[in-house]
């Protein structure tokens, strides 16, 4: 958990995420850190959905990482769930500062291959951002809640403003 203002990170991620969504043709995309803090989102209309998905993504990531370690794997690359209409990819990637987790939900307009392809580009772009070049300080649970609420307000205020 970071003891920093999330707004510069959110701003810096806006364009790379927009490009990823457009090129990979995903319906919903969410970028969170290992603590479940939301750094970028596209396609959600309700804040509680974002919070739920972010928390579940962080939990799934932790479980998959533990499973990978149990089976002798250093890390895992992605988790893919194919439903009848929608598919979900949950993929961690590293920046110099911290590990981030992308959640992407897509339909037949995209594919696992396209998501993987453009995720690689997204990871490269985010890894180059100055905001993700250093490991940042941890904060307490109350701070996390404040950042989460501020982040959600920021996302949904900007979407309402642009819509």
């Amino acid at each position, binding site marked *: 958990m970071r003891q920093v203002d999330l707004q510069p990170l959110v701003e810096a991620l806006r364009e790379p995420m927009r490009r990823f969504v457009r090129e990979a043709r995903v319906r919903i995309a969410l970028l969170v850190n290992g603590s479940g803090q939301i750094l970028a989102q596209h396609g959600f209309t309700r804040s509680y959905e974002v919070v739920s998905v972010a928390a579940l993504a962080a939990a799934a990531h932790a479980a998959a990482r533990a499973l990978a370690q149990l089976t002798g794997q250093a890390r895992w690359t992605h988790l893919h769930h194919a439903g009848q209409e929608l598919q979900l990819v949950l993929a961690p990637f590293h920046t110099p500062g911290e590990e981030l987790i992308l959640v992407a939900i897509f339909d*037949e307009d*995209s*594919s*696992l*291959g*396209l998501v*993987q*392809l453009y995720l*690689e580009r997204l990871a490269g772009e985010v890894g180059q951002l100055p905001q993700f070049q250093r490991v940042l300080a941890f904060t307490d649970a109350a701070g996390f809640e404040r950042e989460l609420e501020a982040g959600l307000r920021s996302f949904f205020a900007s979407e309402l403003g642009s819509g």
Partner: protein
Amino acid sequence: MSDVLSVALSRLSRVDGVRGALIVDAQAGVPVVSELADGVAEPAVAALAASLFRRTAKAAGAAAFGGLETLQLEAEAGHVVMAGAGELVVVVVAEADAQLGLIRLEAQRAAGSLA
């Protein structure tokens, strides 16, 4: 099944001017098997070729042309030839001066053996 895939790829890869061939899962856009020359980005070719094939198949359907059999992409420095095989797509990456007729024939033959 993997023998059938390997034989199909091997035949394609032996055609003059072919830089590589892949058999791709059409829906997932990921390679099933491949034989590619160095410098050909396998995941990118698989994902983009499958996407292009599926979209063109949709367009063909919308235009009442029926199912899409083959698709050929011409670029400045080469060609990409694709042939549908049910849930799979045979993708061939070839040089600009490759024997396209033979490549199309072999791609269709490969697709026929997989479907």
